[in-house]
């Protein structure tokens, strides 16, 4: 497929939205949930030398953000491949891409 109006394109977009929304739900719950709204409750739990809420706010949430982006990259590459919209099957793109360093 290649036509951006086709039913496959619609299905691709739907799956894409689902991936994005589920990852954003995690993004929201680790940062705004665990590190802000419920931070005081989590502070009652000790995590090494930290209160857990404090650790989530100053360390843990950042690690989660990094992981989320790489999960997204992995899932999207798989999705692109499944629907044949990845750039490897795009001859034009490959020819025009400057060589990697």
């Amino acid at each position, binding site marked *: 497929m290649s036509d951006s109006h086709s039913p496959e394109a619609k299905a691709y977009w739907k799956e894409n939205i689902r991936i994005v929304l589920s990852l954003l739900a995690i993004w929201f719950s680790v940062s705004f949930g665990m590190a802000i709204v419920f931070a005081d409750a989590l502070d009652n739990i000790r995590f090494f030398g930290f209160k857990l809420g404090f650790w989530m706010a100053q360390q843990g949430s950042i690690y989660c953000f990094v992981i989320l982006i790489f999960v997204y990259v992995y899932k999207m590459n798989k999705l692109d491949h499944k629907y044949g*919209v990845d750039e490897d099957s795009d001859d034009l793109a490959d020819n025009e891409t400057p060589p990697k360093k």
Partner: protein
Amino acid sequence: MNVQTLTFIFVGFTFAVYIGIAIWSRAGNTDDFYVAGGGVPPLANGMATAADWMSAASFISMAGIISFVGRDGAVYLMGWTGGYVLLALLLAPYLRKFGKYTVPDFVGDRYYSNVARLVAVVCVLFVSFTYVAGQMRGVGIVFSRFLEVDITTGVMIGMGIVFFYAVLGGMKGITYTQVAQFCVLIFAFLVPAIFISMMMTGNPVPQLGFGSTLTDGSNIYVLDKLDQLSQDLGFEAYTAGNKSTIDVFFITAALMVGTAGLPHVIVRFFTVPKVRDARVSAGYALVFIAILYTTAPALASFARVNLINTVNNAEYKTTPAWFKNWENTNLIAWVDKNQDGKIQYTAGKAFRGKPQFLEERGLKGERKISNSSTNNHNELYIDRDIMVLANPEIAGLPNWVIALVAAGGLAAALSTAAGLLLVISTSISHDLLKKMFMPNISDKQELLFARLAAAFAIIIAGYFGIYPPGFVAQVVAFAFGLAASSFFPIILMGIFSKRMNKEGAVAGMITGLTFTASYIVYFKFINPVANTAESWWFGISPEGIGTLGMIFNFMIASLICRFTAPPPQAIKDMVDDIRIPRGAAGSYHH
């Protein structure tokens, strides 16, 4: 060797490297100048994005602020990293597929309107100038403290270097210089942090040392010690927050969304070859940023413990050299309220306002100030900005580490300044001249205008660095608030809603901007006395109001677009096209 000689060697060497890279990567046409020819490998783009993003504020000021506010510092840590998740998942891949040069390009084309384009250009210029003034100031501070040249000369040298590689190399020169600057700044940030973590906790990883016990024999955890020290001196416990939960929520959201909407960050994703590369380079960028952002809170807590232990109840006469050096650069002040010759450091302000130094010296040799003093027991004023720079000296680290930190601070300031200057010059030459006022100029002429605009922008930025307007700190809230309430919603709707039209976008953008700007202007400039939690709407501070502005933008835009004509078919086709990765390299502008 003394600190000054070492600093000259380190700074001189790094500057030589930056210039060498600039000569090697000159820009030949506008494509090179604006987006580095679209051929930057994702890993390099990740480093360049990280250097672009981590400014003098991240390198010099952030750990210092956290050190003084403790828990609440998390708004910056999460706000300035969480935005990358939004950027990677919602904006970067689609903007790369769209494949043009600037944010106003996208806004103008997607909403088929030059009004929208113009509003976007004005926001870009405002946000970028606000930011760049702060960078030049950072350059000035480093030069004046470590190389003992005056701030004006320091800023001029900084301007000269940026001028050379931004004007000559454009985005291509900037990108590869930023890669080098990232390496310098991260190394300079980590080395002292590792040293201090080793000294205080015996653990070489600051992120872990932060949660370990002290090796001073007391065997208590760093953070528990810090809570105890803070409370003894009358401060809030370090791990307890002062801000209300709703305010923390809104500030974090405004910083995250603002980060995702900042033009100098977005434009970096136009420089990679493919959509897939845009996604993964956002991931690399966040890894590189996270290295500094997870080290900063550790460094902040170590620095706080060290500072309290070093200065509280110390005789002024026997304080270490760094104390007097920073006093001489106006960033530390001491008033001996009880005349005992010792420094008492407790909660509260030692005197009203910023220190106004007099020519004369006091009894113990301290610099006298003319401020009216307060009736608490605190005698010490410390500018938060000096914590990172002074930290190696406070901890007594070797001279080469101190010199390294100076070079790192300069790398952070220069890399961000260059990225911003490029955005400014592109906005002028491409968005204003080529797209609106002089559509017939050739590529060569456009490139010339881009270079002239970059040169012009450097001069203005330098002027603000030498004569900093008092409002720089205030307007940073502005930059994020405006980006959050204007760019982020309309770009997001431009990609995810085919129904969103010109009328909705313009109305949404104007609502968000007007609301956010009036709230900030009212509390920061018109009625600063009322800037307290009681008079804020729902307890939201001006720093966090961009979030509410963004929500209004979304609501008004969705409402207006229901009652007005849908966008033309060609626009809907364009949206369909940017949603699919395939074909990005052969995109419109080639």
